[in-house]
């Protein structure tokens, strides 16, 4: 039935084959390239600067000792803890919490990879911005003027589909078609697949700052706004992609714990 409908649409000429954008003239591209912002370096969320070998962030430990919970606003704020969830959203959040203990994951996914315990890099070209982290997670943001794919092309994925544009030195990104983030990672928010994510990223001095707005009437009573900032941390000299293949998170009935040895003797 579904294929019959697609065939009918094709015959009616309403389905166009996917096509690559026209490549830019080399000289013109070089000129455009020269005008683009340049964000070199390995960027980590601001409050995770100086993370120790044990995975602890000094700023967070200090804030905890002070009893200061304001750091939550930046530290993993994309998890939606501050969002206004509607009834369905609250039910989904409760479900995520109830099943989070000891749950393993395969990565951070979007949006959490923008706020996670891994440095990210930005490769900026005239037609595409690539954002990647050391877990092999990659976002492709098309800045070649193409529109968001049609609703008929709805293809939810962990990292979604993104189109972007430059407003001066600010990269404005719209992302749609993201699978419910909490399905992939238990620390992520349970937005619906119809959620729309807007990011506005720009350099402010040595800080990279991103304003985020998530609109998801299916789960949120109002759009969720938050901000994430990143700094360049010391010690990173290359991006090494490493599989997320040894998640030994387990649960002992009261707390998470370390799963017994997972390697062969």
């Amino acid at each position: 039935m579904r294929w019959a409908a697609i065939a009918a649409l094709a015959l009616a000429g309403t389905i166009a084959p996917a096509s690559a954008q026209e490549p830019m003239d080399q000289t013109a591209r070089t000129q455009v390239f020269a005008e683009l912002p340049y964000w070199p370096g390995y960027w980590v969320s601001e409050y995770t600067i100086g993370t120790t070998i044990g995975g602890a962030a000094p700023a967070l430990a200090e804030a905890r000792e002070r009893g200061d919970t304001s750091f939550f606003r930046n530290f993993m704020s994309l998890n939606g803890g501050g969002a206004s969830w509607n009834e369905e959203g609250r039910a989904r959040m409760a479900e995520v919490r109830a099943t989070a203990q000891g749950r393993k994951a395969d990565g951070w996914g979007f949006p959490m990879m923008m706020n996670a315990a891994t440095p990210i890099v930005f490769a900026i070209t005239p037609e595409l911005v690539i954002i990647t982290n050391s877990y092999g997670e990659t976002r492709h943001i098309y800045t070649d003027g193409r529109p968001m794919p049609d609703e008929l092309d709805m293809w939810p994925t962990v990292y979604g589909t993104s189109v972007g544009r430059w407003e001066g030195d600010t990269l404005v990104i719209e992302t749609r078609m993201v699978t419910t983030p909490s399905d992939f990672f238990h620390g992520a928010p349970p937005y619906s697949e119809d959620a729309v994510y807007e990011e506005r990223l720009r350099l402010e001095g040595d800080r990279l700052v991103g304003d985020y707005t998530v609109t998801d009437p299916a789960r949120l009573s109002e759009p969720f706004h938050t901000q994430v900032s990143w700094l360049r941390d010391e010690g990173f000299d290359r991006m090494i992609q490493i599989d997320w293949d040894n998640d030994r998170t387990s649960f002992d009935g009261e707390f998470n714990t370390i799963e017994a040895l997972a390697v062969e003797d």
Partner: protein
Amino acid sequence: MKKFAIVAAVAGFGLLAPVSQAHHSNAMFDTSREVTMRGMVREFQWTNPHAYIQMVVTGADGREVEWSMEMGAPMYLYARGWRPRTLRPGSIINVRAHPLRSGEPGGVVVDVTDADGKAIGTNQ
């Protein structure tokens, strides 16, 4: 009060990790306690989302117990001067760690020294 309770509940469920920036809450570790374990490296798991030192510790009763000492992600270890072969099987090390609350043989690493007490890698 209500707001604090919500934050605490969320943190407890692992949706927020208040101190560790790991992919899970660090509530499993008793950060008010430190133990120093001396033992032999069986394996250094240079893996995501966490690295682990698998070390065999001989207790006062002569019994050997294998401990799982959790560390951060390899990229962060690398940035702090660690390398995949910083710890080699068979070497004797001392690991200072916050132990698991459960009492199981494991913890999260604070620092590591060699058999002579010399710092291995860095924590900066």
